[in-house]
């Protein structure tokens, strides 16, 4: 019995790790589905292509070369080193040691050498990330709401990655049999030099401790994702798949409004209705997260808070309160709050007297936007903060009638004389005089 103890412990840890991870994914899925439907079933080919180019191929992040290349290194490292994870899990389940080495022959050495090289490159890249964030203090990592959790979260992720990679290399270095094979220990052979003079027993203990810490660390990290901006490593894929395909300049036409406007312009339509129209009056625009659509909520969970959007926002550059990143972070914070409310109240949302508008995002922020699409263009994973801003403006204007006075004047001009200024429509051709 006791000889199977490690296997049993491993299975239990793996089970709990996966159990909580799946539970979090379910919660995520539930929360995103609190949003309104949006049709994203069209054009599957183009969507797939976008996902391959932007998420899989890192096509947009690379536009800023320094952070872009560093990101690509960490990304490739993450994906490739996960192959090693498969061996670790199988070893843990079966009680084997380096299972793949028995089957892959010399290829195994090349594989592990690649992992080790990538592990070092990841450590270097992550260290540079840390320096950019904490020593050089690059501006876009600060400002608006980047204090407290967002700041710590960013650093925790970097620490996690360094620790996991270090454990991986130390594990290899302390693995006597692996070092004796002398194939694939590209980096760990140098670390192994430090262990000269250690007894075989202590080396075995170091190797085992690193092995367990590495796999437990990965499971913890996996469960940390849901609470972190690091969730983008999963959501960047669906996010780029579902992202808007049309020209950025196009803002959706609200169907509910179309119906009403058609009725107004053609009153006969009201009578030709067959009477089955029992829809309740729809709320126009968004004052809370449930008024947003699923894609907008997915956007908020996908955001990595990199701040490229805010760094190019003309309003933010000139000192206004608006920050597209904050729009996304606020949306996520609020949908999380709503989700917790639902969890605590037996699957129903009990109104908490709060809303995304005012409690999170102020009118001042919303009215500062020039709708220039710089934030949308800049986002490495095609998040659209502008659509949230515009949906909230729609609520302010159509439900609350609380546009700034000058905009109300502009709108009544359009209504009365077909131009944003008080000129008579009959004078529209006077320019030729």
């Amino acid at each position, binding site marked *: 019995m006791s000889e199977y103890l490690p296997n049993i412990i491993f299975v239990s840890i793996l089970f709990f790790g996966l159990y909580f991870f799946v539970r979090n994914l379910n919660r995520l899925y539930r929360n995103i589905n609190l949003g309104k439907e949006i049709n994203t079933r069209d054009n599957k080919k183009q969507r797939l292509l976008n996902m391959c180019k932007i998420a899989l191929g890192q096509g947009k992040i690379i536009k800023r070369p320094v952070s872009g290349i560093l990101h690509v290194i960490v990304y490739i490292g993450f994906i490739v080193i996960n192959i090693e994870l498969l061996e670790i899990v199988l070893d843990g389940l079966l009680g084997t040691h380096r299972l793949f080495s028995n089957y892959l022959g010399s290829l195994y050495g090349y594989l592990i050498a690649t992992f080790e090289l990538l592990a070092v490159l990841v450590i270097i890249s992550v260290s540079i990330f840390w320096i950019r964030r904490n020593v050089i203090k690059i501006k876009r990592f600060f400002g608006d709401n980047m204090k407290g959790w967002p700041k710590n979260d960013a650093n925790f992720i970097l620490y996690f990655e360094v620790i996991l990679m270090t454990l991986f290399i130390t594990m290899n270095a302390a693995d006597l049999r692996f070092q004796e094979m002398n194939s694939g220990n590209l980096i760990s052979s140098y670390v192994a030099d430090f262990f000269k003079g250690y007894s075989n027993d202590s080396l075995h203990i170091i190797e085992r401790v690193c092995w367990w810490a590495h796999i437990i660390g990965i499971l913890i990290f996996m469960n940390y994702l849901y609470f972190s901006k690091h969730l983008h490593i999963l959501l960047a894929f669906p996010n780029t798949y579902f992202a808007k395909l049309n*020209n*950025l*300049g*196009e*803002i959706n*036409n*609200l169907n509910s*409004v*179309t119906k009403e*406007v058609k009725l*107004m*312009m053609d009153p006969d339509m009201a009578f030709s209705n067959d009477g089955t129209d029992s829809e309740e009056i729809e709320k*126009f625009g968004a004052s809370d997260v449930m008024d947003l659509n699923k894609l907008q909520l997915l956007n908020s969970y996908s955001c990595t808070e990199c701040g490229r959007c805010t760094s*190019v926002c*003309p*309003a933010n*550059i*000139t*000192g*206004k*309160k608006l920050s597209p990143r904050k729009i996304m972070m606020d949306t996520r914070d609020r949908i999380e709050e709503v989700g917790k409310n639902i969890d605590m109240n037996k699957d129903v949302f009990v109104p908490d007297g709060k809303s995304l508008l005012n409690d999170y995002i102020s009118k*001042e922020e919303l*009215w*500062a936007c*020039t*709708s*220039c*699409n*710089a934030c*949308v*263009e*800049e986002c490495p994973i095609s998040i659209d903060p502008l659509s949230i801003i*515009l949906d909230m*403006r*729609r*609520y*302010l*204007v*159509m439900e609350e009638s609380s*546009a*700034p006075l*000058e*905009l109300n*004047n*502009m*709108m009544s001009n*359009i*209504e009365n004389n*077909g*131009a*944003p*200024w008080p*000129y008579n*429509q009959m*004078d*529209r*051709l*006077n*320019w*030729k005089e």
Partner: protein
Amino acid sequence: MENNLHIKTMSEYAAEGKEPEILFWVGCAGSFDDRAKKITKAFVKILNSINLEFAVLGTEESCTGDPAKRSGNEFLFQMQAMSNIEVLNSYSVKTIVTTCPHCFNTIKNEYPSLGGEYKVLHHTQFLNNLLKDGRLKIEGGEYKGKKITYHDPCYLGRANNEYQAPRELIQKLELELIEMKRCKSKGLCCGAGGAQMFKDAEKGNKEINIERTEEALNTKTSIIAAGCPFCNTMISDGVKAKEKENDVKVLDIVELIVTAQDL
């Protein structure tokens, strides 16, 4: 001079039982704003110079609804859109050319699902097409070798991915284009979009048009070209605020063509 402009309305064409090649959508700025009216006229001069048959809607034209939509007033936008579409469809309009990227974007992208499907071109795209078809000739004239910078309007550039057409025209004018650091897809907004033109900016430490104008002035060129009446106003204001209006001209690309070709 002004009276030499040859302009016909859509209803005049209809009365003659004829159809023009294009409808020129003048836009509110192009119709009423003193600065933008000059751009409108410049465009018409070019069309007249090659005897291109075009019509305007005149008093039948109304705001596309862009500033209303971007302020959040979807009702007003759709009312404007639907009544404009009614007018346009009644004349069976097929091709629309506009000197304003906001009108361009709205008619091109937001009218189709409301029943208004047209081929919509920004004036720089249209002129560039004419150039390629050999119907329009452009030479450098008095601008030859002068330095210029070009400000990408958000609603032409990022919103609709048109960065080349205006640049190709500038190249034809034999001007030396000095790009700002923030150009093309990274172009900085002039500050007018999203209905900001019609209100004061929120509290901040700078006006957006000043930020952009400073960047344009840093190119040390004597001309700042734009392709949007609103960008033109914002940057002209910026140049005035920087007291550079005697050294630097803010011009639409059609104005450059008119001067260069001595139209």
